[in-house]
Structure formats: structure tokens, C-alpha cells
């Protein structure tokens, strides 16, 4: 859909995990003419303070869920100054929103098995993708890892819709003890899923590990990347990363979703 620049209103705010907030925004303009954002797309929020130029830039966040005919939810980890300001927003507050931006995941045909792999806040866009898949009758499997149990966002809602969830924590405080890529390796050993579609989002090291796995198992993998952004829509060339081929790609509009092998090499 065409992106818009609009004022959104905070309609809900809840802590879902340690330093991790769910923020619901009402932004009718994103849904006008029956359009709706696609899983994997993101929005830019800001200016963070209307009456101050510090912090200066807006901040990108994946669309976490659509929660109503005019509403979207974001999952925000409070990691720095910008997210601290966003974390202090209260219902009724308004802020600028630019979106939906980026390409989103290639929505797989309903017949294919789907494996989703999330590391930390990388789970944000995968909720949206999982819910859309469920709505089409696909029941994806989600492998979801985080540092420890208190950093995991609840997944019961997803499970109720038919998503099978396997958890991993670095410290073993919940689910598999270790990296989510290790959990995935273990699981894929036991099951052959040659024509599965897979989507991963999380830290670069995790994406690299998952890509290695996908390469060995013949998984069709897409990864969602992050980088610092200024404009969010292809104008500043600030978010460019170089693919394995040496070609430069703007994460904000050529991505954020890329074929894993394009990024990390065949």
C-alpha cells in the first residue's frame, strides 16, 4: 500500500516483558480505502519531542500486530534515549507516524509449511506474519529465543490461533537452554521440510547461523534486517548495507526483508 505521514494516537500501553512495551496506536490513515499494512513492514515514529530538536531523528519499528480496523500495535524494547521517550507515552498522547514502509515478507502459498525464527525483539514482525498465516489456514511453527525468561513476550495468543511455539533462552530459564539457532538445528534434524518457507528476524549473528542451517537443509529463508535510518523511505541512503554480492541495498525500501542467501551468500 501507499505510505502516509500522519498523527497517531496512543490507545494502549502495556509492559509485556522486561523493558519491553506494547504500544497500540490509532492511525486511521493507514487503513483508508481498505488498504492495510503487510507483515514485515515498519513505521517511523517521531519527532520524539515536538518542542526540542534533541533527540533529532525519528525511530523505526516493525508492525507487531493489527489490533483493530484502525489500529496497529508495536513492540518496543527500551534500549536508549528515543525508546525511553516512547516508553513514557500514555494513552491519549499523539505522535507523528510515517508508514507503512518497506517491502514485507513474501507471503508463502498456503500449502507450504512455515518456520518462523525470532531472536529477541525480532519477534515483533513475526507475530504479525504468524497471525496473517493463521487467518489463511496455515499453522506456522515459531522458534523464539531470548536472553532469559523475563525477556520473552507472551505467546499464548499465537498458540490459541494454532501457532506451535518452541522457546529457547540463553540461560535455560525457559524452554531450550541455548541459542534459538541451536534449538532450530536440533528440531530440523528430526524433521525434513524441504519446501518449507522460513522467515527470521533478530540479531545479525543469529540470522547468519539460521542462514547456514537453511543452506544445509534447503530451507527457503527470508531475513529481516535492521540498520540506522534517517528518512525511512529511500531518500537519504543512510541505511544502505552491502549484500554478499557487493551490491548496496537500502534496508528501508529495498528491504527490510531480503532473501537470506542474497545477504549472506549462496
Amino acid at each position, binding site marked *: 500500500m501507499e505510505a502516509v505521514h500522519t498523527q497517531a494516537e496512543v490507545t494502549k500501553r502495556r509492559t509485556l516483558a522486561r523493558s519491553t512495551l506494547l504500544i497500540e496506536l490509532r492511525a486511521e490513515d493507514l487503513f483508508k480505502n481498505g488498504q492495510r499494512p503487510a507483515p514485515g513492514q515498519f513505521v517511523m515514529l517521531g519527532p520524539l519531542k515536538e518542542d526540542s530538536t534533541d533527540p533529532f531523528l525519528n525511530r523505526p519499528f516493525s508492525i507487531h500486530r493489527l489490533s483493530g480496523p484502525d489500529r496497529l500495535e508495536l513492540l518496543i524494547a527500551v534500549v536508549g534515549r528515543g525508546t525511553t521517550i516512547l516508553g513514557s507515552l500514555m494513552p491519549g498522547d499523539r505522535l507523528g507516524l510515517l508508514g507503512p514502509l518497506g517491502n514485507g515478507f513474501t507471503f508463502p502459498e498456503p500449502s507450504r509449511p512455515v518456520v518462523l525464527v525470532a531472536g529477541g525483539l525480532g519477534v515483533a514482525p513475526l507475530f504479525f506474519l504468524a497471525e496473517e498465516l493463521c487467518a489463511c489456514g496455515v499453522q506456522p511453527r515459531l522458534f523464539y529465543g531470548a536472553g532469559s525468561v523475563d525477556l520473552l513476550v507472551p505467546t499464548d495468543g499465537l498458540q490459541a490461533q494454532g501457532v506451535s511455539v518452541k522457546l529457547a533462552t540463553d540461560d535455560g530459564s525457559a524452554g531450550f537452554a541455548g541459542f534459538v539457532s541451536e534449538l532450530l538445528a536440533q528440531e530440523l534434524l528430526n524433521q525434513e521440510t524441504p519446501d518449507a518457507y522460513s522467515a527470521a528476524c533478530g540479531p545479525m549473528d543469529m540470522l547468519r547461523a539460521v542462514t547456514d542451517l537453511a543452506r544445509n537443509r534447503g530451507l527457503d529463508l527470508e531475513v529481516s534486517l535492521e540498520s*540506522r535510518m534517517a528518512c525511512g523511505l529511500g531518500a537519504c541512503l543512510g541505511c544502505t548495507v552491502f549484500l554478499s554480492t557487493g551490491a548496496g541495498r537500502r534496508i528501508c525500501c529495498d528491504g527490510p526483508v531480503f532473501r537470506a542467501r542474497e545477504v549472506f551468500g549462496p
Partner: protein
Amino acid sequence: MSTVDLEVSIGRLTLKNPVMVASGTFGYGSEYAGFVDVNAIGAVVTKGISIYPTDGNSAPRIVETPSGMLNAIGLQNPGFEVFEREKMPFLRKLRSKTIVNFFGSTVEEYAELAGRLDTVEGVDALEVNISCPNIKRGGLAFGADPQTAASVTRAVLRRTDKPVIVKLSPNVTDIVEIARAVADTGVDGITLINTLRGMAIDYRSGRALLGNVIGGLSGPAIRPVAVRAVYEVAQALDVSIIGCGGIVEWPDAVEFLRAGACALQVGSATFRKPSAAMEVLQGLEVFLKKAGHAMVGDLVSTVKVHGGGHP
């Protein structure tokens, strides 16, 4: 409220109003077309182009700083041919003028590209970037020395009949000296300023926050430096000045006009608000009307300098 004539002239170039978007902050215009009325502004200045495609610097390329940002894009661009084929069709359709920002790594490259741009329909003026701090060869080197700056400018002027604007760097000991050398070539205008050379480090990891280590500082943080540069050059020389650097809202635009600029470029502010330039224009128009000014020129170089200081 009276009506205001917003038209301004920069040498041989006439714009319907004084507000432009700065090079590198508005892509090639089409990127922002869905969000804002690009046709409202006086001109779009394109991202800088070179003869051949340029990859630019490695990531990260931007980082936020207090009231500003650093960028080290490294002049990534698709090269002249792709630019002409893929970017010009959109720009030609605009009712705003198109100013093409460009650079080279030798005087001959500047001249060569000027010659090619001269033939491109829809290009209303050229902006010569001799001030980008993000590339190793060329770039800043050309803008740091009066003789070199003048010879690049002369080489460009010889190859094109289109209006030529030269964009200067603030990273010099004496900007008036450089501006004078450039103005003496008979150039149509001078854009002041490009970014300040800066750098940031992640205190925790020790990593330089730009792939290129050093980048260009822009945004409101640098506005006082930009206003000073405009004022100094306006006081010393009789040349059209385009003010640029940290304009976020319309009062900032008035500040630049009063300092001596006759037109303006809105840069990084667009990243905060896509409509920044359009809102600056609207605010400026209302201000001019309310103040009873008939034209933009009424504000240019109207800064009042204090006498004394005794009460």
C-alpha cells in the same frame, strides 16, 4: 494582509519561491512525492551525482548527535546515465525547478559532467559540490583552497549555459576568501553551507559510529555556524547566497534571510518531518504578509547590529 511576491532570483535562475530541499536529503524527489506536495517548493536539489555510479561508504552511514546527525553516505549515486534515464522523468514533470547537485574527483570530471548536464532537458541549474567531507579524493579538497575552488567553477561555467551554483564547505579558516574566489568567476550563486566534519564513537564498544569514521554534521546544531557563514559572505561580497544548515522551522528561514541569504535549503529537517520544507514556506509567507513585506528581498540582509551595550 497584503499579498507577497515570493519569487526570487539567484543570478540567472528564477524560482517561484525561495524554499528548496537540500541535496542528499530528498533523494531525487520521487521518494517524498507520496507524502508531500513537492510542487509547492521553489526547487528540488537532487542527491549529488557523478559521471559513473558510486557505491558510497560502508555501513553504518548515519548516527544521531545532539540536535543533529552525522552522515557518511560517501556520495552513493547511480551515475549520470541512470540519473538521466530513471530520475529525470519524474523531476521534469514537477512545477518546482530541478537543480542537479554533482561532484567529480578531478577538475576535468567536474567539467565533463557539467557538459553532459548542460544538454539535459529539465535541469534548471547545476549545484557544484566542492564541499563534501565524505570522499577521499576530490570533494572537500576542492573547496578548501580559493584557487582550486575558482578553477573548478570556471571549468564548469565554460561547459554549460545553465545557471551554476557552487556549494561551499564551512570547514575552512576563511570562508569569505573561498567565496570571493568563486564569486569572481561570475557564478550565479553560492550555497552556504555543507556539513561540518565530525565523528562519534560508541563509548561502550569503542567502535566508530560511522563506517567511514569521519562524516558530516548537519541539523540545527550547526545553524549558528551556517548563519555566521552567510552573514560574513553577504557583508563582504555581492553574490546571491542560498542559506542552508539547520533550518527546521520558518523562523530559522527568516534568520537566514536577515543574515543575507536570498533563498534557502531545508536539509535534515525533512527526516523528522517530510513536510518540513513546505511548512517553512507556508510560515515564511504568513510572516512576510503579517509584517507587510511585499517581497522576500525585503528581509534579505536586514540584520541589525547592536551599538554600545550601555543601557
